[in-house]
């Protein structure tokens, strides 16, 4: 089954702002000084399955935009798709290329290029205190201890977590944990960040805060979500159904197609 709308020329941020979608949400602030090029992700004829069940069925898509949303019913394959993007999963068949890199061969380079934020920050935060967990991603980097400490301080300030530097991670609120999880990924300065349902466990205020963090990123952001307002201002939305992309368009038309399918 082919997508209802085939993606054409990428839209500019300003044209997106003027698009017809009028969802009330967290995003929408102008993006700060964007880097020259977004990450290019090419997926060619990808199949993948678990326990004899096919989860992705012949996916073909090229992503070149900076803000890409992925929606779909539970079990539609969107989280599996997200995991292909930094090599957490390798496709059973087909090709995945991240800026030309093959995760099967260039796993380290792909992991450095693509960060991943999981749905549940409790399982993404792996070290006992806020400071230690943020520094985890820098372990093994060649930068010195002073440089690492400076990076940690900078990111703590940026996310308003400076006062919690020595705090045990398990004592943080849900919103603070999700910010910590994002900070822990951002400190490695990836070109692209994949978010797997980042607001599912959050209340409205924290969901908006995370939405604002995503909106302010200079990196490419690919967001798997059921939180449709989060996708306001995005460049492109893919709708998944039964392992295929069934709609691929600007947020307005794509989300309308999704809502129609779900009702």
């Amino acid at each position: 089954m082919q997508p209802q709308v085939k993606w054409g020329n990428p839209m500019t941020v300003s044209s997106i702002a003027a698009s017809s979608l009028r969802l009330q949400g967290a995003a929408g602030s102008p993006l700060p000084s964007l880097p020259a090029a977004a990450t290019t992700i090419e997926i060619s004829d990808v199949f993948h399955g678990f326990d004899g069940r096919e989860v992705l069925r012949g996916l073909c898509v090229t992503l070149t935009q900076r803000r890409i949303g992925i929606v779909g019913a539970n079990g539609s394959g969107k989280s599996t798709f997200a995991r292909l993007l930094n090599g957490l999963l390798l496709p059973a068949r087909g090709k995945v290329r991240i800026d030309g890199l093959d995760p099967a061969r260039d796993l380290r380079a792909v992991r450095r290029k693509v960060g991943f934020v999981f749905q549940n920050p409790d399982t993404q935060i792996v070290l006992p205190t806020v400071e230690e967990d943020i520094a985890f991603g820098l372990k093994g980097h060649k930068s010195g201890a002073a440089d690492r400490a400076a990076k940690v301080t900078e990111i703590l300030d940026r996310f308003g977590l400076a006062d919690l530097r020595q705090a045990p991670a398990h004592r943080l609120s849900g919103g603070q944990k999700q910010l910590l999880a994002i900070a822990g990924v951002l400190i490695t300065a990836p070109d692209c960040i994949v978010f797997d349902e980042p607001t599912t466990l959050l209340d409205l205020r924290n969901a908006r805060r995370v939405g604002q963090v995503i909106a302010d990123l200079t990196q490419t952001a690919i967001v798997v979500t059921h939180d449709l307002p989060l996708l306001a201002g995005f460049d492109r939305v893919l709708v998944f159904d039964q392992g295929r992309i069934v709609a691929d368009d600007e947020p307005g038309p794509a989300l309308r197609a999704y809502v129609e399918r779900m009702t």
Partner: protein
Amino acid sequence: MSPLHRCPPGPKLATLALAGTGLMFVTNPFAMLDFLALTLLGFHVAGFGGARIWRQIRPMLWMLAVLFLVQGGLAGWTLAALIVARLLTLMLLASLVTLTTRTEDLIATLERLLTPLAPLGVNPAKVGLAVSLALRFLPVIAEEAERVREAQAARGLGTHPLALILPLIVRVLKAAEEVAEAIEARSGHDDGPALSR
């Protein structure tokens, strides 16, 4: 910052290791109580009050109680008191070490100590990470246990241990899988295949 906080992790770990072995040779319950008192003095020196000590003891109370009753019934109450006092002293001493040492420093010391074992196939970095994960996830597992207990109580299930343990094991295994995935995603390692799920 207390003298115990300023003390490097090496001597603290050595003291803990020494106590772990040495206390096995203490057979007088009153002498064991002296060591327990010394440990409590350590908490005082580190600036921790009674409330903090109670928070360390509370989670292990039920286990100590069971141990005391079983040992008392099988081997006599004096020996039971000795064993419980020994275990309590060691647990409090271990808590004191972790409370007064940054995890990062603790792990770095541990990794340094394990480096000579690298030719034998021991990976100090992986051992350090395992210890960090244990420290990180102990409170998370405790919270999970509390959630399971509440859920079982809400469904009218009693306090049968299986009703708590089985769902907890399932949750912990699922969490372990997610944590492994997160570590893989965050560490940039490529020393193995991607998860083949």
